[in-house]
């Protein structure tokens, strides 16, 4: 069953930035790209479980604040050492000014 969860208001995240979102005992990262699209991934780096929401968004890259590991937040692909394992991504939609993340189905 589809499970769209409200993460935040669309305006809560600056362009080219990221925000932490916790739900059901799990943590996620919600991104707003430079071209005003929204994306979501697991919230912790696959390398050492650091919150990606403290990192830096550059174009379509999220860089982990601890060891500078990089992921493409649109696809979840790991983009170089020290990250080797991809991030899980989640569908996102904006409805009535709210950012919704589909966490389970």
């Amino acid at each position, binding site marked *: 069953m589809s499970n769209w969860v409200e993460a935040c208001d669309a305006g809560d995240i600056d362009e080219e930035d990221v925000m932490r979102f916790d739900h059901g005992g799990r943590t996620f990262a919600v991104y707003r790209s430079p071209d005003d699209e929204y994306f979501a991934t697991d919230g912790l780096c696959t390398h*050492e479980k650091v919150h990606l929401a403290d990192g830096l968004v*550059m174009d379509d890259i999220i860089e982990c604040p601890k*060891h*500078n590991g*990089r992921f493409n937040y649109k696809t979840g692909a790991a983009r170089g*050492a020290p990250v080797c394992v991809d991030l899980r991504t989640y569908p996102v939609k904006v409805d009535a000014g709210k950012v919704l993340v589909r966490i389970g189905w």
Partner: protein
Amino acid sequence: MVDIGLRTGNTSSAAASRRDYSLIGRDAKLAVESGLAAAEWYHTDVPRKQMKELMQRSDGPAIRDTIIWLGAMILSGAGAAWFWGSWWCVPFFFVYGVLYGSSTDSRWHECGHGTAFRTQWMNDVVYQVACFMIMRNPVTWRWSHTRHHTDTIIVGRDPEISVMRPPDLLRVVLNFVGILDAWYAMSDMLRNAAGIISPAEGTFIPEQERPKAIRIARIWTAIYAATVALAVYTGSFLPLMLVGLPRLYGAWHHVMVGLLQHGGLAENVTDHRLNSRTVYMNPISRFIYWNMNYHVEHHMFPMVPYHALPRLHELIKHDLPAPTASILAGYREMIPAFLRQLRNEDYFIKRELPPTARPYREDFHNDNAAAAVAAE
């Protein structure tokens, strides 16, 4: 950042010391069991908006600095070669050596973090060049440095503790001319070139990365062999004075500033304010060192590029110990601490936090520190 030697061998120092710095030894296991490994570290609160500004990447400063760095290397190297055979070559080699054997320490470091340039291929190119000059396998040291940031000065976990307790001062002095570092680097290079990854290296280099480390070691071995062959063919030391030996005669500056990063400070604390040192330095040393004198700031926020560290320092200094006033002041603090550690290896320099600072864990700031000082 690493300064003196990487512990990639298998030997344990536990027999001679109550501490076991081996990555596969007793204290390594204890650090994992006690939660010191991969722990949560203290961070000064910085508003997200300001941190985002500080983290912003730019190609401009690093391109400028790299042009100056490589341009000065070419000019000094050409001058050294031109005057080869006369005493006039000495000042040229002095400059060339520092640019080759010391500036590369910070270039390796910053480009390894991926923060020097905004454009990633620029970081990668300078990283590879600097790694060759400083004799650090770019794969091995990328992963060792990752561990250094995860477990900074945690005994048995951090592969980059430059001065272990009790301090081996002869080793420290010899490394000002890079002798031991170069010896270990060459040994590791030949071992890796033979396809061997040591058990200690295996603790921090993922399996899929190991072939890359071996491939790089083989390329480097070929370059050094060609340099030696050229020296033999021409009957001159000049090729070796330009490739390889500058890592020895030019190492002094990176060792001088690198020792200050953590020397004499606390081990096994999860607060960079207590185990790292920020030192004010002259602008030439800061150019060579790429602002890594702001070392507490760098460890606390490794995402901040070198050119933004002075701004970060101004923003958070209220929460940090007072910076050390100069390189000389750092040595006046550090050398007596090393000498005391020869008699009592539990001794360390206790960093005083300003009254406005937020303590992370009281026991790190008071009880343990008092116990160590009292043990003296």
